[in-house]
């Protein structure tokens, strides 16, 4: 999901507002048992009792719900949710959601990544609480979303455990990899037409944490997080590491990258430091963030 930088940028902005505006405060002050009330930018959302029919229209939230043990409560997920494999996938769309189709599942909680065309307002009119979790732009924001899902589904301690596990594993990887990454540069590819992700984006934070220099940063003058780089620039920067997040969508491989005009001169191409990362791992901000760190750590291990 979220292969669309403009939308992603807008969502990231919305997420800043939502997460920054009070969800964490709500998370801290909320009582342990139901009813649970969380505070978001759209106002207070109250979940009266432990939900048993949850719908997730967000692939990231789907992964998180299953990771914190709320999977059995999930009755339907959108057509982009594909992890874990056992999710109850439906034809529901998170981009063009149909309120009647969603309501037809008689949900008692809906989680979404977008709120297009008054989706949440319409569902709330039907008495269905809606939690909108846009794209996180920081690790903190990503953890807060998992914590929030724990709260509204009644898995507070599980959520805390998942978050702690993620933090521990990521810290360990960062400690081990940072010395190897010192001074190395990275190019993260979203599409074959050279859309990239700067440090402003969520994936960019991963490279920042590892101490890599992101070549997209000087191109991100607009601050969207997703600039389109010019080929001349990528070749002249000659990054040490290339991460392909367009291997599934667009069939990109180390070979297709090496075959691009002039790219055979890039350090990463010469040393074979081209990492193919599953598009969905690189574009979501859920528990599989750890897998992303792991893939990069092993690439850095090979480099040094």
């Amino acid at each position: 999901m979220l292969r669309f930088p403009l939308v992603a940028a807008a969502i990231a902005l919305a997420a800043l507002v939502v997460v920054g505006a009070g969800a964490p405060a709500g998370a801290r002050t909320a009582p342990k048992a139901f009813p649970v009330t969380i505070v978001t930018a759209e106002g207070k959302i109250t979940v009266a009792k432990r939900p048993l029919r949850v719908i997730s229209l967000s692939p990231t939230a789907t992964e998180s719900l299953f990771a914190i043990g709320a999977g059995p409560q999930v009755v339907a997920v959108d057509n982009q949710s594909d992890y874990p494999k056992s999710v109850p996938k439906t034809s529901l769309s998170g981009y063009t959601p149909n309120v009647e189709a969603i309501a037809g599942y008689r949900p008692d909680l809906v989680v979404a990544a977008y709120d297009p065309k008054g989706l949440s307002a319409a569902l709330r009119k039907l008495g269905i609480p809606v939690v909108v979790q846009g794209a996180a732009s920081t690790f903190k924001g990503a953890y807060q979303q998992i914590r929030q899902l724990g709260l509204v589904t009644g898995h507070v301690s599980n959520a805390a455990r998942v978050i702690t596990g993620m933090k521990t594993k990521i810290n360990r990887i960062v400690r081990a990899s940072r010395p190897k990454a010192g001074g190395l540069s990275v190019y993260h590819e979203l599409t074959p037409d050279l859309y990239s992700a700067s440090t402003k984006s969520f994936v960019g934070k991963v490279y920042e944490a590892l101490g890599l220099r992101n070549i997209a940063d000087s191109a991100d003058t607009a601050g969207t997080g997703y600039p389109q780089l010019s080929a001349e620039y990528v070749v002249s920067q000659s990054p040490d590491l290339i991460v392909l997040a367009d291997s599934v969508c667009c069939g990109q491989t180390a070979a297709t990258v090496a075959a691009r005009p002039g790219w055979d001169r890039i350090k990463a191409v010469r040393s074979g430091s081209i990492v193919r990362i599953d598009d969905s791992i690189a574009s979501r901000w859920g528990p599989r963030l750890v897998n992303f760190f792991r893939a990069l750590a092993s690439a850095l291990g090979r480099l040094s």
Partner: protein
Amino acid sequence: METAAARVAYVRPRGLTPLWAGAAVAFLVGALVIGVLVGPIDLGLGPILESVAARLHVPGVSSSLSPTDNAILWEIRMPRVVLGALVGGMLALSGATYQGVFRNPLADPYLLGVAAGAGLGATLAIAYLPEGLRGQQALPVAAFLGGGAAVVLTYSVGRSASRGRDAVTLVLAGVTVASFFTALQTFVQQENADTLQQVYTWILGSIPSSGWSDVVLILPYVTLASAVILAHRRVVDVLSLGDDEARSLGVDVRRVRLVLVVAATVGTAAAVAVCGLIGFVGIIVPHAIRMLAGTGYRALLPLSVVAGAGFLVLADVIARTALAPAEIPLGIVTAFFGAPFFALVLRTTRGGAA
């Protein structure tokens, strides 16, 4: 036929004057030079000239560029400039041809549904092709076929609907087919939301940095299409008078229109296949020439090729460098700079030849 030829000669408008031909060529050469010299990476004027001279085997000159910079100049920048020139020339020529053939000043190269068809072809390729084929190679082929299919459909709808008023019916059929294909394209895209990004950037249009391969890919189509259209440039002048007038002058209107439309469509489809949808070139360039030079199609068509090539090369320089090292989609540049320029030309020449 003899009398027809004589009458054609009688209505023949002003031909290509050396002044405007020279101006257009100078504009193109200037644009090409700027295109090669300017880019997101500053290679330096001297080293670029040295490298070019070395390639031309000028004795005693060797390139001082590093191997990487040399690759940037010859494998990325040069082919992109050449591709921009080919596409710009083709789009401007197709636009001018459609304007003459359909006697419609608002006709652009996408009039008969090429763009919508190519968009559907590209979207289908992005959404449904297996992973191995999904690289950049399959996309132009699918877009080309989609564009061609749309125009064939437009033609058959137009022909089945009309007897007398061919041109107008064809334009309406084009609008219909374009809407239908756009609807299909949007539906496929919605069903495959994960392809949104790719489809979106394709539709915005840009000259890819794909090296010489795309140049080689479209060169035969663009050359052939341009040659056919330019060979018929006098007939376009006759057609622009009206079907009845052209017929009375001995022109086989239907056949000639078909030849011209097929040529313009093949050329446009080839351009769209590698560059996506770049708007405005096909309208702005011919009209600007018409207002400045005030010529008939006989001169307008060749001038459009040359000036269109120069225009798109310059627009791409802006797309490459304005936010360097980031890129701006070329379609935005052509509209953003093209529209005000067009307004200026319109203003300064109002009441003139146009």
